[in-house]
């Protein structure tokens, strides 16, 4: 099974569509894997369960993560990713509509690389998503 460059964990189909469009529009042509619930996201990253056939040595270059997810929450996923040796070097960008201080603090405690509040305005939203995606992809590429 092929591993994609960008892993995008998000349950809101509207946000998925808008994000993908924004990325495309800014020429982020990398392959994107979208996963809609937390449990599945963990199975994908650690190549277990439904994704047992995936080569677990292949890692996504960046993970975009929403905090509010069904089954397993975003903060829990972040914690898991940053505590496991094989995944802790993957840059994780939290993309969320929550600007609650406790969410931001916790995310940084777990070692998030970026925290982006989804802006209401579409222009701002698409710009934020694509700049971040590009930034971390470029950083990771050059590593």
């Amino acid at each position, binding site marked *: 099974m092929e591993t994609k460059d960008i892993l995008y964990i998000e349950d809101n189909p509207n946000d998925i569509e*808008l994000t993908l*469009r924004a990325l495309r529009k800014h020429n982020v042509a990398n392959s994107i894997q979208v996963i809609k619930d937390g449990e599945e996201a963990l199975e994908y990253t650690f190549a277990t369960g439904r994704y047992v056939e995936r080569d677990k040595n292949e890692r996504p270059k960046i993970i975009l993560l929403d905090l509010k997810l069904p089954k397993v929450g975003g903060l829990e996923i972040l914690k898991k990713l940053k505590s496991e040796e094989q995944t802790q070097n993957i840059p994780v960008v939290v993309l969320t*509509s929550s*600007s*609650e201080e406790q969410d931001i603090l916790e995310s940084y405690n777990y070692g998030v690389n970026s925290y982006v509040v989804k802006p209401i305005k*579409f222009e701002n939203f698409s710009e934020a998503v694509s700049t971040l995606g590009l930034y971390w992809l470029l950083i990771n590429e050059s590593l």
Partner: protein
Amino acid sequence: MRKIKHPKFQTRLFIGLLLIILSFSISSVFYYRDIQEINKVTNDIFEHPYTVNKSARDIDIYINAIHRSMSDIVLSENEIELNNSINLINRNEQLIYDNFKIVREKFLGDLELMNNAFATFVNWKPIRDEIINLVKNGDKNTAAKIAKGKGNDHILLLLKKTGLMIDYADEKAASFNQNLVNILNHAKSSFLLFFIGALCLGIIIFLWIFYSISSSINNMIKRIKNASGDKIKQFPNFDGNQLTILDYAISEFENREKTLEEKVNNRTNELRKAQNLLESSIENANIGIVTTTIEGKIQKANNYFCDFVGYSKEELINLNYTDITTKEDKLVGEKFVKEVLEGNIKDSSLSKAYVHKSGKIIFGQVSLSIIRDSNNQPNQLFTQIRDITKQKKYELELATHKNDLEGLIEERTRELNDKTLKLSRSQEALTYLLEDVNDIRKELEISNNKLLDANKELEAFSYSVSHDLKAPLRAIIGFSQILKEDYAPQLNSESNRYINLVIDNAENMGQLITDLLEFSRMARTKLDKSQVDLLTIVQRVKRELEPSIQNRKISYKIKPLPLINADEKLIYHVVQNLISNAVKFTSKVENAIVEIGCTNENKRNVFYIKDNGIGFNKKYAGRIFDVFQRLHTVEEFPGTGIGLSIVQRIILKHGGKIWVESEINKGTTFFFTL
């Protein structure tokens, strides 16, 4: 260390020499005296026995001659022979007489013996004359008879008597001789005795001098060894040669003295540095430092004190402490010094009034300590003075206020008494009321708990609002935007306007949600107070606003602003909100002026942000801080109506107050205290 007192070395030698000379002199005197004695005895020996002996023997010879002449007379044949013999007898008799005279002069022994012999000689003369006469008369036989008998006997008697005299003189000479031997022996032995005595004395004195020098050198070495302390083991022996040891010790001490001198120099330098440091610390201390004599004469004063009393150092040195003290405080000051000196008070601190050079009264907090000399006698006074003039002034003001207050209290007390009377009447009524209050309190507790629950619910609510409410909005805006981007050409202008309206309203709603969340969060956050520089915040806000007002001309008047104790993040929010409001409501004015400043009213800092914008009717001044309260349409001035509510919440949370003054078309001023 015990100091042994020795006579001076030279003195000892001198005394020794003197004693030896003295003993030799004494022995010489004795010896000289013996020599004199010997001389005298020798004289006696040579003078007397010899002279006497000779004369006595001469007498003996002449007597024998007379004896022979007598027989010649008797036997004479003629007159001539007779006369010759008579002359011979006369001459010999004269010689005997002379010799007796010598013996009489010099004879030392029994004069009786000599007189007896002389008397016998005198008695001879009649016999001689008788014989001569008989011969002259021719009676030679009778003369011969007499001469042989009586004459012969008398001559023999005379010879016998002179013989006795001679024996005696011999005896005397022998005894003198014996004397001489005795005296010589005596002189010899006494000389030997004195000589040995002097020799012994010399040896004793030499030994004494030798011992005292040697013992004092030993003593010196012992003391050097003691003084050298740990080095005693390194002290060479030099085969007991004391002078070499002394020489070594002296050079060792010289070396040590050099080292010591270096050490002393180093220590002196260190001390000097320390003293300089101390002096400069004292000089620049942020407290007045003065040293005086016990009598109060100023010896040294530092800069702080000079500034404090307004005198230069030179002027102060000629002054006494009492010269710069007020008349009233002179006695107090003197009593204080006395008590400190006697050790009666432990806390030697006093607040005292001074006279400044300008005549002004100033106050100082004095603390006094005594510097003692090596005999533990008080020597100097070390005084530290803090300028408390301002503090004193405040105290005086305070006292005045206190007096006013006391008057007020009295008045109030009277009023209170009246009221108490009334109150006691009301108390009864109150008892009933209290029961009701208790009931109410119980109800209040219940509702308070409900409120806490509600607060928790609100938190959960706002959390989900921030997530769930924003997501559909983002979708509405996003897809409307896509619609606009992708299908604008296919839609007519009315449709496009509707799409724009959808987007605008959705964005507005998003802003509303954000503001509302902010507002509710404000209720939950705790204050994080620190020292905040308001000016920095104002500058930051001004800078951040610049991009949005590029085509406008706004002149800011920023007055001096004090430091405040507040939550920096929240105060930033207040300032940001008020300044952006001012900027917003001056957008229709040509020369927009925004003034930020601070005034002091009743000792409270009142901050204000003033604009010359459109203003509003002052009857709305009380409602402007209500949530969602707007005084203008969104078309005129955009906004959600929550900003000022948040500002008010922040100010209230800080325990402050916010109010507004405004006049239509003249401008608005927001005031707040913290």
